[in-house]
């Protein structure tokens, strides 16, 4: 494969792994993502999306596991109000991460990075 | 997009999938309708019960209440109100009969429907019939509905 094609493949594979980790294949998706990262070269599109995927999923782990865990510990499993916050927060934040990962996946298909302005070409 | 998966293939999946699963739905419907007598309490569906269902509809009770979980969420579930009110149709009739015309100040209020004795009896019998429907896992989870 040409360099460009390989980069594109690595980019979209990274983005896909990131999305899978957030949805159907937690942990396995992350391991796959690390695997792809290892194969990428510095300063390439593939490396960019791999790093982005790793950062996204680490942030998600903190936001979804640590913060939720804290809510449960501080609020107590028995209180209905703990569950109100935990479930609402988890669903909403998880959905936002999935949307972000979906957006990066689609963006990776164009061979470009994310940009500051949402839809610039 | 890879050219191995063509528009024609997508179209065929749509046609095939739609027809196949529509037929499955029809088949399951036939089976469900055939099995209903085992659970639907239709043996207790008297003329009075049917009159009660008509009254339930004409007064739009579903506009505030749920019945087997379906309807509006303003007022309590009534599928099991017969059980909740001590398996006594008189309690159900009394509740409907004594709704104040101007409601209860500051609280969610139920209209006064000015039903006759016979209509009240029909409605209560309808709710008793609904309570007797054998729902899966004996839904709702408890008497509160």
């Amino acid at each position, binding site marked *: 494969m040409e360099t460009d094609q390989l980069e594109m493949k690595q980019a979209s594979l990274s983005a896909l792994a990131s999305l899978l980790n957030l949805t159907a294949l937690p942990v396995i998706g992350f391991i796959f993502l690390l695997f792809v990262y290892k194969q990428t070269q510095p300063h390439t599109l593939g490396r960019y999306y791999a790093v982005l995927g790793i950062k996204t999923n680490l942030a998600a782990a903190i936001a979804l596991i640590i913060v939720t865990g804290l809510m449960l510990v501080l609020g107590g499993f028995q209180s*209905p109000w703990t569950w109100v916050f935990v479930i609402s927060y988890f669903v909403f934040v998880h959905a936002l991460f999935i949307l972000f990962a979906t957006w990066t996946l689609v963006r990776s298909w164009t061979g470009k990075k994310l940009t500051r302005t949402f839809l610039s070409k | 997009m890879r050219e191995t998966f063509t528009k024609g293939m997508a179209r065929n999946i749509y046609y095939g*999938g739609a027809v196949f699963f529509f037929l499955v739905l029809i088949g399951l419907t036939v089976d469900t309708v055939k099995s209903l007598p085992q659970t639907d309490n239709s043996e207790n569906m008297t003329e009075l019960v049917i009159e009660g269902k008509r009254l339930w509809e004409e007064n739009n009770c579903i506009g505030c209440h749920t019945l087997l979980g379906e309807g509006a969420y303003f007022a309590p579930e009534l599928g099991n109100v017969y059980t909740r009110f001590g398996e006594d149709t008189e309690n159900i009739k009394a509740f409907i009969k004594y709704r104040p015309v101007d409601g209860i100040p500051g609280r969610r209020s139920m209209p006064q429907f000015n039903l006759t004795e016979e209509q009240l009896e029909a409605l209560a019998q309808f709710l008793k019939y609904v309570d007797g429907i054998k729902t899966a896992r004996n839904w709702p989870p408890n008497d509160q509905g």
Partner: protein
Amino acid sequence: MKYESQAVAKLYFIAAIALFVGQILFGVTMGLQYVMGDFLFPEIPFNVARMVHTNLLIVWLLFGFMGSAYYLVPEEAERELFAPWLAKLMFWIFLVAGALTILGYLLVPYARLAEITMNDLLPTMGREFLEQPTITKIGIVIVALAFIFNIGMTVLTGRKTVINLVLLTGLVGLAVFFLFSFYNPDNLVMDKYFWWFVVHLWVEGVWELIMASLLAYVLIKVTGVDREVIEKWLYIIIAMALISGLVGTGHHFFWIGTPDYWQWLGSIFSALEPIPFFMMTLFAFNVVNKRRRDHPNKAAVLWALGTAVMAFLGAGVWGFLHTLAPVNYYTHGTQITAAHGHMAFYGAYVMVVLTMISYSMPLMRGQKAGNIKAQVVEMWSFWLMTVSMVFITLFLTGAGIAQVYLQRYSDDPLPFMVVQEKIAIFYWLREAAGLIFLIGLILYIYSFFAKGKEVEFAEA
């Protein structure tokens, strides 16, 4: 606007927006009744406000679908509409019949309305969303038949594109499944089973075909992406919608006295129902990313992307939350249902109609896109309505979780009314969000009148 007859859509869209305003006014009324229980009692009891709110929603969306079809089909079929006079006539008939029905709900006790409209001859009144008198329902069928005839003849004698055919299929399906509203058996379980053949097979079935085809149309127009690509996506999306949604109807057959196997079938198939919405999100993002032109109507692009995202969140994610039988056992008929219902309807159907209006209205007024100020105001209204809907949903979700815990899950369950008192705070917050939604809607209407600098259209 390539064909003169596309202009009939304008009538339909204006009516749609007017009815939308009515819907929301009654919505905020109900929101207040949730916390001030006797507000407007006994003149407008909650159930009357509710049937006005839900019926207006359905009718304005129907006006929106019809207007969208009248705009889109002549252009896709590359010919004028078959009978513009019929479209105009049906518009007035539908509008007057709808207005009379709503007035009937408001001015007369429902039981009396049933009497006046001779419900006894063929009783179809008194079921949720199908509160219309039987004569109104017959009127709806006549209007629908005339509409399908008009659109159908236009397609059949013109160019048959995938978009045209998928839209037509969805609309025919809408009309056919509406016929189940005339079937009202005495057996309550049968009643409930077939009621879903209208409601589920509409909103989780044929309406998805309508939505997907409208979205595909707007995306072709604003991005310039190759039709072949978009049509392939369209087929995949609607294939997944029907493959998941047909047997997925079973997620309404868990607790109504139907056989136990529905808990398995309904759960498994309906768990797949988010897939077409996820695909629409991928699809919309992808074609906008790969666009060949920067269309001057930025507002329309925003609505299109927003539709895909909100439909995925509201219908897909929130739907999935309570679709599995073991969860639904506890959440059935609670505020969780209301939370999902609001975001799903707004995200999928309200937004796709507003997308079509956003794209086509300027063209019907003789411009490629609204002026800069109008678009900015419109985009503000998009954000206000969309973000406030997210909050409405989050607050009702909170209310629902508390309700489920206290009334259904707890070992010592509390009565319904006691629980409602305890979760009142969520309802107050919801009402506040609802008022912001209304402000967003008012801004939306203002956007049609705002004057400003015209946009330039640079060819790609």
